[in-house]
């Protein structure tokens, strides 16, 4: 028999620290698979966040910089400007990218930085113990919304991918999920497309990945994937919000006007 599925080369051997059934591990692996598929392990510089993914440097065998909370896109900008020929990406959680780091992500995207930002949205603060995230859905309980997120008190979840996709510097923006195998495979395709946009030097690319947090949601891993499908997917709609073709048409239109 032929081995058809094994640990990606660009992953280290270290067991991951994530709680049982946390789909963050799936995302870590997908990124490594894409790095392998594109043959860019030796040309990749990853930027890590603060949050549950803070130890991701332990799991990828690539050059790595650890950023402060929310600042990964700024750090990635500094790296990419020094090494424009390398592949630079950040992995960030919802607190990192959609709360404390909104300034950095919006302006990196607006500048069209030729980097890739991978955003894990699990609608809660995992590392700090289950507090409300900017992406906590209305009604969802957390340790700081014990009666469920109240829209009058705490407003609405932030839809990052929709927001960022309207910026001209953004070439690719997609939201995917990893709650079942079919969606995991789609997620990998989106991550690969995002990296390819960067490899072609086209501009900024973003993939938001819906993920579970069984521990802080207070659910079993199997119930958690069901909860994600039922409560997150309807609000955070999956799909490609911006693709490179659109960018091309836009440039042609501008050129015609200018000409």
């Amino acid at each position, binding site marked *: *028999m*032929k*081995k*058809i*599925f*094994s*640990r*990606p080369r660009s*992953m280290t051997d270290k*067991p*991951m620290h*994530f*709680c*049982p*059934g*946390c*789909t*963050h*591990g*799936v995302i870590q*692996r997908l990124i490594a698979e894409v790095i392998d598929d594109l043959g860019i392990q030796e040309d990749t510089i990853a930027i890590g966040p603060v949050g549950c993914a803070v130890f991701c440097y332990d799991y990828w065998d690539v050059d790595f910089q650890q950023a402060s909370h929310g600042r990964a896109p700024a750090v990635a900008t500094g790296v990419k400007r020094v090494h424009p020929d390398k592949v630079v990406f950040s992995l960030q959680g919802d607190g990192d990218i959609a709360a404390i780091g909104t300034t950095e992500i919006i302006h990196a995207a607006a500048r069209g930085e030729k980097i890739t930002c991978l955003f894990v949205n699990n609608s809660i603060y995992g590392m700090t113990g289950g507090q409300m995230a900017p992406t906590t859905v209305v009604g969802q309980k957390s340790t700081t919304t014990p009666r469920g997120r109240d829209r009058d008190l705490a407003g609405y979840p932030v839809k990052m991918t929709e927001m960022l996709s309207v910026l001209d510097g953004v070439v690719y923006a997609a939201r995917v999920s990893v709650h*079942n*195998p079919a969606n*995991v*495979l789609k997620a990998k395709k989106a991550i690969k497309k995002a990296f390819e946009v960067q490899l072609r030097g086209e501009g900024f690319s973003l993939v938001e990945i819906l993920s579970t947090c*069984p521990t802080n949601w207070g659910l*079993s*891993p*199997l119930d958690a*994937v069901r909860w994600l499908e039922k409560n997150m997917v309807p609000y955070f709609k999956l799909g490609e919000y911006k693709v490179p073709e659109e960018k091309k048409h836009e440039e042609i239109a501008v050129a015609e006007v200018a000409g």
Partner: protein
Amino acid sequence: MAIGRIVIDEERCKGCALCTAACPKGLIRISGRLNGSGYHPAEIVDGEKCRGCALCAVMCPDVAIEVEKEAS
């Protein structure tokens, strides 16, 4: 004769059971054994029926499953 074969690294497995739901044939279950970390690892039953679709491995958050398949 099995078309596929999976190898579960029991020490990496955290017993989350996502693979049990991913297997289209329901061939994986959580065992009664404990691994070194105190988790009940997943195990395959009726391995002869495995088609090597790898969906269990696709869903595994701990990269604990390797899959082999008969070359078609």
